[in-house]
């Protein structure tokens, strides 16, 4: 035959093999081949190939197509019992290895269960609102010249109004402003009262359950209040709260509705709402229009609900043009508007000035990745140990294959074994989950406010699914490996370890595991260092022995008088808020000629504050000692503001004028040395102390005492005598700062804990590998010993390989972790601790010590064994 080299198309053959019944396949293919050969001679190769393909397609008929392999699946099913039994036996036989696997997987799984619960909880946030997918809010990006913009969840009332008036295609939009705070007087009782203002469209956007009152009108009239059922019960126990009067700030408010307490999974929680028209009326009375300023964007929120036919892009386009319009009238600081979906608030980007809680996607990502790394590590353990043990199982596989098991069946068997292990781990993990949950929630108060970590029964199914996925992925490589073994090879010389010698995968996995462990240790120590650094940072003023007390609406002078009775208190000053703990307040300020303007952060203080806090005055003097300031005349500024308004040196700046708002032209009386009024992640910007003791919210008590705790108790008692309504809220400055940096502490705790887990898991894995090596090389060791090897040299021989792996792991981990922290995680911190060599070396030391102890102990045991014992059985 000519054209011997021409064959039918391969893919057609494969297609035939795929669909054709096995019993028909061979002769059918033969027939087609015979025709192909005929056509080849008669019509040439192209035509022959074409005909062959056509024939293959033509034979796709009911009687040739293989039936669904119900029978085959049935055998699989029947074999399940056998797989299960052998798996249990094998697990029981290798108690140490099974224990390592189950334990490691259980620990890491419990972390993952925590994460799964957390993710699903966060994802369910705010989904109780009807049409929650159509609700969005306006967010602001404030940008000074070409600096990086600052992102805010809040916006201006002006933006909210223009949204309501000018943007088409909205079903409803509502403006919310926080936060009204007063003492509510009901009859003879007084209650502390905090509520946001919300306008009349509030219930058109949100689906909070209004129990009493008219949803369309309850918030329309000025001085209307809606209480939650909880608050109503507190204020009016046993009475009908509707149309009752509440006296606040000499104004009487009428209760126009009762709303069900917002559910836990609402990002926005409130105990009452006040009509926005109240706020409007009050602001109009002041005859200032700052409240409608484009830059007054610190405490207002605009939520809107789209029409069914409107897309968010259309709204965004309108918002952009509104922002452009407003910005064209602004100076160097511009504000851009964008939107955020309601369901994205809890897990969205980190924005400042949140209305309620937000975990932020950054934190979620970090936690998710960490959990993944931990489970990965445990999965590696399983893979590693299973491959190592597969030498023992090779014979079993051989016999199974001889008896007739297919590759697929062997694969299924070992996958099932892995799943059994992982499901066992799940049970243990579930118990650990309940131990872990309170620990996790107690990490920070925010966590407790925003997460419950309770799960519905359906979650158990997810957990099981998760366990099975883990089992399948961890068991994948060993199962694949074992199912590929050839029966003849395995049975002929099962003793040979050659089969496994080529597997470098194990080494790779160990290196990865220890790289991760190392990275964790180093990260934990860096986080700890940054935390300590922030606490001990020289803020530029003295915080020692200063107790800050919240006035809770009391008159500052009266309160001050009370505390002056206590001899241990050496000095008392007043201020509007506690600096350097995260809270910031700002005004727009202008130069005297009105050309330069800038955002100036400020604190309102009395004349005692600056000496009490130990601020250093570079030039000028402190405020004059006055108890009451009727007319504000002077201001004390920091160094940065001098550059911004080009006021020259501190000495030159004295006597110059800065304008705050339209009415206040203030003379610079003093210049303080730059200090950190915000947290360390931001740079020092313009700052001013304003002389407004009447606006004080805080008292700062300087305490000189042998027994601080006793003094604090005395202060608290004095407070309780003085004010029976409000609880005592005072804390030492240092503690407040510590709380402000608690994120580092949380990070340290979390990462430290995970580091501990990964190290434990890795060490367990290493132990398993050590045991395995020592076992398989026992004979070799004995012979070496008989020939005169010392115990030390044997240990060196056995540990050398592992030590190399650890070394490689450290070489990878150190630079990459350093890079991660240096250029990614800490890069947005304006002030940070250097990453010390000590942290890096310490991590490596820990790993090496742990690694050496685990491996060393096993090799030591092997090296110590009596050669006569081990060789005798040969």
């Amino acid at each position, binding site marked *: 035959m000519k054209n011997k080299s021409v064959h039918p198309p391969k893919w057609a053959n494969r297609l035939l093999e795929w669909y054709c019944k096995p019993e*028909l396949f*061979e*002769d*059918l*293919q*033969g*027939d*087609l*081949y*015979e*025709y192909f*050969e005929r056509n080849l001679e008669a019509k040439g190769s192209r035509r022959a190939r074409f005909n062959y393909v056509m*024939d293959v397609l*033509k*034979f796709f*008929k009911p*009687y040739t197509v293989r039936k669904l392999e119900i029978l085959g699946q049935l055998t699989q099913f029947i074999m399940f019992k056998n797989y299960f039994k052998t798996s249990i036996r094998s697990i029981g036989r290798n108690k140490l290895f099974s224990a390592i696997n189950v334990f490691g997987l259980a620990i890491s799984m419990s972390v993952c269960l925590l994460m799964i619960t957390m993710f699903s909880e966060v994802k369910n946030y705010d989904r109780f609102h009807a049409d929650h997918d159509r609700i969005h809010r306006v967010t602001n990006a404030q940008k000074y010249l070409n600096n990086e913009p600052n992102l805010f969840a809040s916006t201006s009332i002006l933006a909210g109004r223009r949204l309501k008036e000018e943007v088409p295609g909205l079903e409803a939009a509502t403006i919310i402003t926080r936060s009204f705070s007063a003492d509510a007087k009901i009859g003879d009782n007084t209650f502390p009262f905090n509520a946001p203002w919300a306008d009349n469209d509030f219930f058109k956007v949100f689906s909070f359950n209004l129990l009493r009152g008219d949803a369309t009108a309850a918030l329309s009239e000025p001085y209307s209040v809606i209480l939650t059922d909880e608050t109503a019960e507190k204020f009016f126990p046993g009475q009908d709260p509707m149309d009752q009067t509440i006296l606040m700030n000499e104004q009487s408010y009428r209760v126009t509705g009762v709303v069900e307490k917002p559910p836990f999974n609402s990002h926005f929680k409130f105990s009452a709402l006040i009509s926005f028209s109240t706020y409007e009326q009050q602001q109009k009375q002041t005859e200032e229009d700052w409240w409608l300023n484009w830059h007054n964007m610190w405490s207002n929120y605009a939520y809107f609900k789209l029409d069914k036919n409107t897309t968010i892009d259309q709204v965004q386009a309108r918002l952009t043009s509104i922002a452009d319009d407003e910005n064209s009238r602004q100076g160097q600081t511009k504000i851009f508007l964008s939107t955020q979906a309601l369901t994205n608030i809890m897990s969205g980007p980190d924005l400042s000035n949140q209305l309620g809680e937000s975990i932020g996607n950054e934190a979620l990502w970090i936690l998710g990745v960490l959990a993944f790394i931990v489970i990965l590590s445990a999965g590696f353990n399983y893979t590693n140990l299973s491959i190592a043990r597969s030498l023992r199982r090779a014979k079993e596989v051989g016999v199974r294959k001889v008896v007739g098991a297919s590759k697929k069946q062997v694969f299924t068997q070992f996958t099932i074994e892995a799943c059994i292990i992982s499901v066992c781990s799940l049970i243990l993990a579930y118990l650990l989950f309940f131990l872990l949950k309170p620990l996790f929630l107690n990490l920070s108060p925010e966590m407790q406010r925003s997460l419950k970590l309770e799960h519905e029964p359906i979650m158990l199914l997810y957990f099981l699914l998760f366990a099975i996925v883990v089992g399948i992925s961890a068991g994948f490589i060993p199962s694949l490996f074992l199912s590929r073994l050839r029966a003849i090879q395995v049975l002929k010389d099962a003793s040979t370890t050659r089969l496994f010698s080529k597997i470098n995968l194990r080494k790779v996995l160990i290196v990865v595991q220890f790289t991760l462990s190392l990275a964790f240790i180093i990260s934990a120590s860096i986080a700890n260092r940054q935390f300590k650094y922030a606490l001990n940072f020289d803020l530029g003023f003295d915080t020692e022995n200063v107790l800050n007390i919240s006035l809770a609406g009391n008159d500052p002078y009266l309160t001050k008088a009370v505390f002056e009775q206590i001899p241990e208190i050496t000095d008392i000053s007043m201020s509007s808020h506690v600096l350097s703990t995260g809270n910031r307040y700002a005004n727009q300020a202008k130069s005297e000629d009105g050309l330069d303007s800038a955002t100036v952060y400020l604190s309102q203080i009395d004349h005692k504050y600056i000496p009490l806090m130990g601020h250093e005055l570079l030039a000028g003097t402190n405020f004059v000692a006055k108890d009451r300031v009727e007319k504000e005349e002077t201001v004390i500024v920091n160094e940065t503001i001098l550059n911004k308004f080009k006021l020259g040196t501190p000495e030159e700046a004295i006597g110059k004028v800065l304008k705050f708002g339209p009415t206040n032209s203030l003379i610079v009386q003093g210049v303080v040395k730059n200090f950190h009024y915000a947290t360390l992640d931001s740079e020092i910007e313009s700052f001013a102390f304003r002389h407004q003791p009447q606006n004080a919210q805080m008292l700062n008590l300087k305490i000189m005492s042998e027994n601080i705790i006793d003094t604090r108790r005395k202060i608290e008692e004095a407070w309780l005598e003085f004010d029976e309504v409000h609880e005592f809220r005072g804390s030492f400055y240092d503690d407040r700062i510590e709380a402000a940096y608690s994120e580092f502490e949380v990070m340290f705790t979390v990462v430290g804990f995970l580091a501990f887990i990964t190290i434990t898991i890795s060490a367990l894995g290493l132990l398993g590998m050590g045991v395995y090596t020592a076992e398989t090389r026992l004979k070799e060791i004995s012979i070496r010993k008989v020939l005169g090897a010392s115990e030390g040299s044997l240990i060196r021989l056995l540990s050398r390989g592992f030590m190399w792996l650890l070394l490689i792991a450290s070489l990878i981990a150190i630079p990459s972790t350093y890079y991660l922290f240096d250029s990614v995680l800490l890069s947005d911190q304006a002030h940070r601790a250097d990453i010390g060599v000590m942290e890096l070396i310490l991590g490596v030391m820990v790993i090496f010590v742990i690694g050496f102890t685990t491996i060393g102990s096993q090799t030591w045991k092997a090296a110590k064994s009596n050669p006569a014992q081990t060789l005798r059985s040969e």
Partner: protein
Amino acid sequence: MKGTNLGEFEEVVLLTIAALMEDAYSVSICDEIERVTERKVKLSVVHAVLNRLDKKGFVKSHLGDPTSTRGGRRKRFFTVTHAGKVALTKVKQQRDQFWSVIPEFNLKFI
């Protein structure tokens, strides 16, 4: 299973198998029918009929020895079973019955 009646083409195939004796496999059956009846026969059709006959129990098949032709694939040889023979005979008898009652039959009518 459908009834044990023989269709026209089934009968032809069955007869061909019987005629080819030891050498009846799909391709040779195809060729033989083409030669005798002078009509074009598709392999896929013959194959389907063979399958149907097999199900009805009129033929049985066995795989032959592998040869160097056909890409080394074995042939499936068919033989007529007893039931097949019975069915064929029955068809022939029925036809003969009809023939026997036709008095004069002349080709000239055609």
